[in-house]
């Protein structure tokens, strides 16, 4: 079934149908989320207005982990079942994940200064996220480091799988170590420790970010498939001319 969409033309058509279903809801949800986040949600009893950073920090942090996990799964599919779309998806996802990770680091840092009293500490959560960021960069660098693009995508895929151990470490770092970063607020046994008036914009933004990710993913995959075809065509034309 999925094999079918390895055809660039068919993939293009699928992307064209899906795109509006991702792009528009993403825009609407993010705008609604922003409205609630900035205008229509209460300040925190402790942190005051600064809590509003949460509405970008937490969704992008979740995306950083989510995108990496998706990327690693897609890499595994590419390595085991040799489906070319899988590598393209991973390749398309990596820069998006790197961007979300960067946003998570920056917003966390900007939140940490007023609340903790420091931009940065080397605690387990912050350090492991930084490592995640470097894994993304390493993935991208490895991908582009080879003359043969096929070699690059497979080597990078192996790296992505090796680095997957980092994801549970990031998530549980606040449990395993005494970190300055707070423990989980939302996904916990006893139910969210966040008041519903703050939970609403958080979820709006989180879902909006996911859809935005899917939008970008489709766009980038399309571009990558076209680039691949362009390379193949130019190569073939060269050889053809040469053979004549």
């Amino acid at each position: 079934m999925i094999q079918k969409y390895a055809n660039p033309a068919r993939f293009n058509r699928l992307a064209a149908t899906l795109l509006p279903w991702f792009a528009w809801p993403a825009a609407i949800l993010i705008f609604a989320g922003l409205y609630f986040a900035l205008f229509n949600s209460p300040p925190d009893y402790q942190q005051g207005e600064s809590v509003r950073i949460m509405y970008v920090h937490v969704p992008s942090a979740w995306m950083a982990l989510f995108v990496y996990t998706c990327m690693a799964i897609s890499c595994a599919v590419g390595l085991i079942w040799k489906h070319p779309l899988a590598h393209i998806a991973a390749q398309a996802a990596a820069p998006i994940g790197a961007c979300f990770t960067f946003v998570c680091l920056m917003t966390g840092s900007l939140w940490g200064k007023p609340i903790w009293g420091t931009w940065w500490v080397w605690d387990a959560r912050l350090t492991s996220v930084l490592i995640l960021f470097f894994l993304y960069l390493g993935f991208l660098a490895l991908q582009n480091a080879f003359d043969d693009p096929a070699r690059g995508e497979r080597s990078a895929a192996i790296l992505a799988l090796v680095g997957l151990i980092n994801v549970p470490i990031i998530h549980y770092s606040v449990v395993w170590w005494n970190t300055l970063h707070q423990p989980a607020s939302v996904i916990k046994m006893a139910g969210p420790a966040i008041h519903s008036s703050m939970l609403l914009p958080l979820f709006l933004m989180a879902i909006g970010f996911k859809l935005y990710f899917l939008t970008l993913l489709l766009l980038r995959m399309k571009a990558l498939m076209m680039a691949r075809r362009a390379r193949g065509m130019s190569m073939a034309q060269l050889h053809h001319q040469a053979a004549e």
Partner: protein
Amino acid sequence: MQMLSEFLAMGGYGSFIWAAYGTAAIVLLGLLYLSLRELRATGAEIAALEANSPRRRRMDDEDGDEIK
């Protein structure tokens, strides 16, 4: 006017909050812009190559070639 500046000040956290939202917006929208630009550039490249090729084969051919 005063309401606006009060809103922008965000109870003293304005600079942090706007910097956070600003970075997020720049990074995420920047990526969108770059992706779209890349898409357009490769589209143009393919068009040029197709114009060059002896037997034309369009990207949206109904049953085009396939990588499986």
